[in-house]
């Protein structure tokens, strides 16, 4: 083809059905040597399924897959076989073993051996090297679960990269990374690209696509919309192709910015010297009714941990918490819920979804838990509630009785969001609420957040995306090294001031 770029992977006429859902229908996909190829589409468009089919996690019904150097079409029956065919993958949900060490995770299934035994020394040393190459300096002999989701993500990537693949697949790898980490990842990707690796990159961040990608393939409702070169497809058109209609996400966001005038209500939550040893140092914070308060800081700065201490996810071990002026003791999340709080956790797979339960059960479970065991929400109400949020959040599912694990990543996220909206809390903590959610819905959710605040709800908003915070938050708290270091009032909010504060510049204290 152009510039002598060799095709290294070709998928033709791929179809895949799930009961009640056409996940892929007659999809083509081509990957060339040394290119970064974005795979884009709305939530549930079929991106992850295309990848699973390619890597043998799921079987496909029709079509064929060819790779370079092979005359026959290949069928990968397992990710392991795919790896043998030179295809390495980082899946949307981190797929490592939390209780194994970092090194073990990096070398699982291919441990260096010495005299029939695992050679721990070499393994740890090589792990250290691999991670150093990615600028990750951590103790590799510690269990993976001790690290944040972002670090885990980086380790999953490091593992895939180290398998010396010809094709590297990254399914939404950046959704839990902050700007610096994204930049590191991009460096790595460009480096691999120069070495001739073809990279398939799934993301919902348009800026990132325009930053690193060469080509874009767009899917919509399981069908191929087309393949485009990045320079020839302006952003507005890309969004239109994904959504199947004209939609200017930037304009929608601007409009929303204009009406962000929120008057501060009375104090709802007030924390005094609240802390949880090991995760967040003592902090003072007042949260008012009707405000969206943002927590910003680097990963590991303690922003999630601050929220968890308030909610009782990590029981605060010192300090005082007042709700509506009354001193309260929160021993477990249920106490917080009864005081009118809600918490959407950062880690969807580990702490959010209840994988085998249906969409309906996942939506009503928190409300049901609050009501107590003996006051079962009637079947009819359960269905009404579920349908309401399927509608409101445009959750794409074949039926409300489908296990949530069968939904696409973004749609799972919407279900969890629905769960907390149904609870109608006075104070809602949203930790990365738009993670994995597509462009169109993302602005909808941001609007919803602002709307809820205007109706009087207090919202704590945590996001790695600074722009998103700017759009929604009326005040921002800055954290560094597990410590709250200051606040930025509305007038001070701006990309630069935030970045400076996060990195350690001057903040009014």
């Amino acid at each position, binding site marked *: 083809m152009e510039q002598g770029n060799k095709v290294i992977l070709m998928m033709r006429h791929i179809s895949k059905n799930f009961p009640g859902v056409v996940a892929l229908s007659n999809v083509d996909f081509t990957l060339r040597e040394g290119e970064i190829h974005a795979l884009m589409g709305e939530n549930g468009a079929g991106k992850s399924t295309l990848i699973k089919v390619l890597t043998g996690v799921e*079987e496909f019904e029709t079509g064929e897959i060819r790779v370079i150097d092979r005359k026959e079409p290949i*069928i990968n*029956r397992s990710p392991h076989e795919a790896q043998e065919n030179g295809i390495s993958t980082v899946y949307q949900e981190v797929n490592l073993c939390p209780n194994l060490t970092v090194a073990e995770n990096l070398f699982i299934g291919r441990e260096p051996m010495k005299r029939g035994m695992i050679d721990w020394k070499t393994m740890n040393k090589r792990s250290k090297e691999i991670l150093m190459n990615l600028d990750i300096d951590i103790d590799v002999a510690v269990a993976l679960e001790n690290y944040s989701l972002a670090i885990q993500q980086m380790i999953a990537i490091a593992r895939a990269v180290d398998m010396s693949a010809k094709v590297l697949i990254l399914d939404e790898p950046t959704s839990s990374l902050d700007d610096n980490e994204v930049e590191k990842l991009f460096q790595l990707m460009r480096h691999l690209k120069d070495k001739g690796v073809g990279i398939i990159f799934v993301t919902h961040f348009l800026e990132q696509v325009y930053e690193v990608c060469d080509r874009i393939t767009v899917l919509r409702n399981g069908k191929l919309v087309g393949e485009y070169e990045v320079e020839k497809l302006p952003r507005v058109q890309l969004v239109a192709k994904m959504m199947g209609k004209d939609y200017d996400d930037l304009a929608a966001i601007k409009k929303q910015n204009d009406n962000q005038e929120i008057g501060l209500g009375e104090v709802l939550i007030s924390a005094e010297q609240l802390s949880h040893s090991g995760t967040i140092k003592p902090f003072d914070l007042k949260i008012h009714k009707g405000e969206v308060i943002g927590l910003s800081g680097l990963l590991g700065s303690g922003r999630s941990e601050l929220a968890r201490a308030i909610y009782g*996810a990590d029981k605060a071990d010192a300090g005082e918490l007042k709700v509506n002026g009354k001193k309260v003791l929160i021993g*477990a*999340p*249920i106490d917080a*819920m009864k005081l009118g709080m809600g*918490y959407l*956790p950062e880690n969807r797979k*580990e*702490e*959010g*979804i*209840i*994988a*085998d*339960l249906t969409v309906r*059960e996942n939506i009503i*479970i*928190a409300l*049901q*838990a*609050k*009501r*107590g*065991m*003996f*006051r*079962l*929400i009637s079947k009819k109400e359960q269905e009404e509630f579920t349908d309401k949020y399927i509608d409101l959040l445009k959750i794409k599912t074949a039926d409300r009785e489908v296990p949530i694990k069968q939904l696409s990543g973004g749609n799972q996220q919407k279900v969890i969001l629905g*769960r907390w909206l149904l609870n109608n809390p006075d104070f809602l903590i949203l930790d990365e609420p738009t993670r994995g959610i597509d462009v169109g819905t993302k602005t909808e959710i941001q609007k919803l957040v602002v709307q809820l605040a205007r109706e009087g709800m207090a919202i704590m908003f945590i996001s790695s995306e600074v722009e998103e915070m700017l759009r929604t938050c009326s005040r921002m708290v800055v954290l560094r090294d597990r410590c709250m270091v200051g606040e930025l009032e509305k007038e001070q909010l701006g990309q630069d001031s935030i970045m400076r504060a996060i990195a350690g510049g001057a903040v009014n204290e």
Partner: protein
Amino acid sequence: MSKMRYIAGRIMGYRLFLPLLCLAIVLLVNVVKTPSFFEITIRNGVLYGYIVDIMNRSSELVILSIGMTLVVAASGGTDISVGAVSAVSGAVAIFILGGGQTSTDFYHAPYLLGFLAAIAVGALLGAWNGFLVAKMKIQPMVATLILYTAGRGIAQLITEGQILYLRVDHFKQLGGFIPGIPLPTPVFVAILCILVTLLLLKKTALGMYIQTVGINSKAARLVGLNSTRIKFLTYAFCGLCSGIAGMIITSRVYSIDANNAGLNIELDAILAVALGGNNLGGGRFSLLGSVIGAVTIQALTTTLYAMKVSADQLYVYKAVVVILIVALQSAELKRMLKNLRVRVAVQTGKEVA
């Protein structure tokens, strides 16, 4: 054609399809081997026949498998002490009702007292297991191993190492027949236990809570559930079931032998849960599946007896059949077969080309 396929798909997709199929196969073997298997006759005003026998004999296993199902679902572990706990409950009942005598033919205390004491002791021992598993976070297998071994010792202490007999006709009724009723009493007890549990699971949020905790206990906590309490409850409930089963077991033989009452029944109870298509790792469960599993195990035993397999060979045959049934339900095997088909298809495709 496609409609037939659709219907077939629906039937096979039904959760209890495989467990029911297994039970049906076990029963159908008898059509060939023992034609008299399905006959039911009336003698002395009560029903007789292999089928009645299966229902009767499986009762205590059914009851135990109910408790076991909930324990497995909530904690992803098994309670291996149910047999021993049954023995303790039985010992308590006979000790109270028989006044501690080795052999007696009248009640020394009201029946209800003995019955309730037995069940309360069962629940108490279950609560102990629950405390160890839920509160102390000890692995279920290890936690219940304590009562698995110590339970029989406790029962021995109560019976002072002897077999206690209670030759009261009324006492035999729970494990036998109530005059004027043609079906054995254990069947009614088992059905009652199933109904009460189903009611509890469906009319309250307990079923949903148990599954949530079993699937993802971190998420369960964040949505406001107290997984410690829920796990504890399932173990206590399982102990209660063991108490009821213990009453039936002792009533059948109107005596308690601390060493042998309910011996090895915990293994059958666990197996019943597995045969019912339940994941022993916890989470989603089907109570009726376990019940069918329990009946299948008993049907298998009865079938083998009907085919005149001697008692000492029984276990070998049973093991073989169990392996077959478990294999039939295994998703991994299904995948392997499918892969094999694909491979064969690819091979033949090549030859054609």
